[in-house]
């Protein structure tokens, strides 16, 4: 498969469909993604959550897999959940801050 068939915009757009149900904001605007790597038809996502022991961790990991496996040309998705470096609100986008009521930095 040609890797150019899967572009950044499509992956991020798909990941914007995955919402943190407690905060009511998608994981891209929350700044939970650390890296996304595309190798052929496989997408590897390294991400974190707002707090270790977040009760939503299983659901959000599933959401990332579901969203990416729905994309054309994606056959395999690996989600790596990491706590270091820890998430902080400065990682959020402006729209993420608005959606969650977090003040600016």
């Amino acid at each position, binding site marked *: 498969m040609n*890797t150019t068939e*899967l572009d*950044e*915009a*499509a*992956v*991020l*757009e*798909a990941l914007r*469909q*995955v*919402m943190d*149900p*407690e905060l*009511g904001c998608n994981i*891209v*605007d929350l*700044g939970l*993604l*650390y*890296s*996304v*790597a*595309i*190798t052929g038809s496989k997408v590897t996502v390294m991400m974190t959550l*707002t*707090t*270790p*022991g977040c*009760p939503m961790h*299983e*659901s*959000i*990991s*599933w*959401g*990332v897999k*579901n*969203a*990416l*496996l*729905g*994309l*054309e*040309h994606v056959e395999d998705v690996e*989600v*790596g*959940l*990491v*706590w*270091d*470096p820890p998430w902080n*609100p400065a*990682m*959020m986008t402006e729209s*993420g801050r608005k959606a*969650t*009521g*977090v*003040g600016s930095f």
Partner: protein
Amino acid sequence: MAVSLPISAVADPSPARPVAAAPAPGANAPSVTLPLAFVLVGLAALLAGMGWLVVRPGILAAYHYNQYVIAATHLFVLGWICSVVMGAMYQLVPVALETKLYSQRLARWQFAFHVAGFTGMVWMFRKWNMEEVAHFGSAFAFGVVLFVYNLARTLRRVPRWNVTAAAVASALAWLSLAIIAGLSLAAAKCTYDGVSESSAVGPILHVFKSVAGFVARFDAISAMHAHAHLGGVGCFTMLIVGVSYKLIPMFTLSEVQSHRRAAWSVALLNLGLAGSFVTILLRSRWKPAFALVIVAALAVYGWEIVAILRARKRRALDWGIKYFLTAVAMLLPVSALAIVLSWPRLPLNAFTGQLENAYGFLGLLGVVTFAIMGMLYKIVPFLVWFGCYSRQIGRVRVPALADLYSARLQAAGYWAFLAGLAVACAGIVTSSEAGVRWGCGLLALSTLTLAVNVGSMLSHFSRPRLKPLTFQSSTVLKTA
């Protein structure tokens, strides 16, 4: 060739340090059915208890050492508070402490013993049949043994021991002691005339008689108060304190500001309760000293909660957190009453008795119940969402937790509860049946708002609200 995408939304997209791996997703996910069953039983008990007080307000307008107050108290404590706390702990302790529940099977068995035990106990307290109370109490206690064993084995798996784990362990220990004390009190009130020590149950009978003889050395009311403090302060207040250090930062996007301060609050609470138990039991003049140690523990806890809230990144507080924080603020009048009532030279008159009623009522309803109601607005939506939508996320648009219930009804419940608490407490202190009835009526109304919201959340199991995903650009999706 691998293509790595920069994450444009992230301030620092490529972590400078190597990343530390988290547990695999799905490792700790418990079943949602059992916690929900505990919650529903608890809500039914709360509604029954509120209804009872509305119909019979006189039981709170008189001194509390009677069968009806004791039955109603056990309905609230075992039926409502213990049910919800136990169900929530099966769900939250593994999640919050990043481990897995030791045994779901044991938890299901405990549920059966719990429901049979507390309903029988409340009914038999009402009839003042202490032998049957002891029988049903033993069934309840067996359930608690299963609960404590299950949670203790779960705690042994905790990868990182912290102040929340220490508080949960302390609460389990105090709960066990409260149950032992309760059963001992029941044993002391039983008569053993019909059974011979030479029969098959003779050795057990001998133990019961020995326990009864030991408990009879103490003043009955003091022993009951000491037992109540083991449960109310040792188990429930300890859990509120310990769980706060995990949940308040989680829901307000903040952090514990001083782990040392948090640890001191739990340590002082343990010390103060140990001393209070002994001094209450012995009617010692040292009671105020240990009451002050507990108040100091709660002051340190309050100090840390204020620091956590000041450092929060999420400025707006939702109603669930407002319920919980208001309950925490209620510790102030409860602590003031505790110091007054611990005073050794306090005259033992009818007014003092009503102050004691108000102290217990405010502690169990104002602090523990209000805190639980707030946390139920976090726990039940999570359980329902997890059961209905966790496998759908990313495939279709699923509702957020706050979309599962009415925030307006939640706010109405908050104000009705506060008003009900004020009116009921005024009614209790002045021995006014009308005041107690109106106050408990408002509290019942508040409970109904919670019940309606819980019903609304549960309706998602039969009618999931799913919508198609909406993309802003021409993202290419697989065709079915």
